[in-house]
């Protein structure tokens, strides 16, 4: 893909990234950071691609496999730990209306 198209996608993604988290309350800073952390775990895809193009037995392959391992830890661990944090918010029914304070 050519440079300008990529630049366009990059710039638009930056704005979307800013926009989606702009209204988060302090309470959710940590879970949101953790969730974003999990999302960049898709880096494991890149690790799989480079491991797939490395020659068997080569040094490159083992580096790539290390990347697969690290990426998978980031991805799976990230989502599970985020879910555990947010699990804590569920049991209390009044939580949702109480949070709306500013809007109401």
């Amino acid at each position, binding site marked *: 893909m050519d440079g300008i198209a990529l630049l366009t996608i990059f710039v638009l993604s930056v704005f979307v990234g800013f926009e989606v988290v702009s209204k988060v309350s302090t309470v*959710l800073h940590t879970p949101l950071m953790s969730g974003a*952390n999990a999302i960049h775990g898709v880096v494991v895809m890149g690790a799989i691609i480079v491991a797939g193009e490395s020659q068997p037995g080569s040094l490159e392959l083992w580096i790539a496999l290390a990347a697969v391992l690290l990426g998978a830890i980031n991805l799976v661990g990230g989502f599970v*730990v985020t879910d555990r944090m947010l699990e804590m918010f569920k049991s209390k029914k009044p939580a949702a209306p109480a949070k709306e304070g500013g809007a109401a």
Partner: protein
Amino acid sequence: MSETHVDPTWVQLSYLVAAVLFVLALKSMSSPRTARTGVLLGAIGAVLATGVLFFSGIELMNLTLIIVFLVVGSIVGLVAARRVKMTAMPQLVALFNGVGGGAAALIAVVEYLVVGSDDLLFLIFTVATVIIGSVAFSGSIVTYLKLQELMTTRPVVIPLGKWITILVAAATVVGGVWLIVDPQQWLLWALLGLGLLFGVLFVLPVGGADVPIVISLLNAMTGLAVAASGYVLDNLLLLIAGTLVGASGTLLTNMMAKAMGRPLTATLFGAFSGSTAGGGGTGTDRPVRSGSANDVAIMLGFANKVILVPGYGLAVAQAQSTLRELADLLTEKGIEVDYAIHPVAGRMPGHMNVLLAEANVPYEQLKEMDEINPEFSATDVVLVVGANDVVNPAARTDQSAPIYGMPILDVDQAQQIVFLKRSMRPGFAGIENEILFDPKTTLLFGDAKDSLTKVVSSLKSV
């Protein structure tokens, strides 16, 4: 760049779906009501994208080994995330972030070694991925060590640290430009090493209380590294996902810094300006007033309004439910009870809310700083459990304190203040707290859980 392979249309559409899911995930995680759905959406997006990759027609050698490492990594991540205590959660997030950054750096190294290219943009993005990824990796490891208290939580200032850091940064930039102009393999390894070294130097001087902000910043950096690796591999989804995280993470870092009243530059470079020493040995031999659990129970039992200030010490002692028991008991006696939650109570913004929610504390009793601060002057007793820096007036008055400028809970306005503390040891930021020596302050030494249990049983007989 994988030169010839072009993903079929259905694969590209799947990646688009995954990208949309990531956007929706971040959006949903910004509101408590939809946050859990957000996690689910994100996870679906990630599984979809990774699954599709295997059937996209891309040629994958070493498939068995890849799957083995993928499964092992997933299990390690799953077990670590399931097993971790909620109190230790911030450092685990830092660790997960670090390994993600490390993965991005390694990917760029392998792509350079295996495919390589003289294309200018390819080289620029390879250099960017290697540097940013390795900084995020080693920086996150240091934050992990700090939060896990495997090393000192205070700013580490090495002699000439400022100049060494600048030198390493300059060497990294020069090495990067050199590699782009004149690609050589040894330079790539050198860059990896320099990036790792810079990450360590960059995080060492950061004080304990500022570590969460740095974790958030490193998280944004990993996002950017992943985005750059997306360009290196010609993979649009990595580019989009990485950029989303990079941008939202940068904004989030700023919001966190604002919540703590600390400009980002002060957080990152504060230690370099040499303004961190803080107090030192003056305090330990000064007189303080300590009381028994019974004294505290009587003070609480005859109050009209009590505010509880929970801190990290409460979480460490696993005393959240004992504190709730105390609050319930006081409420039964017709005493007004609120919890004052500092934005960074615990180790990170929102950390204390998570810990108290785990102990089933009713959400309405949790009051944020701006809401509760005007109420302290009308409060009879403030009970501070395992918190220190967030109530330290040095943040208002002492310009040399590392926490200077951070908004604090105004507990010194209350009629009486009770501190449950393990010892006179200063808080995470490593500075003395003047309130401890105030005549209206009573200290109850001991493990937070033991002390609370004793107070609860005394209160029952008052």
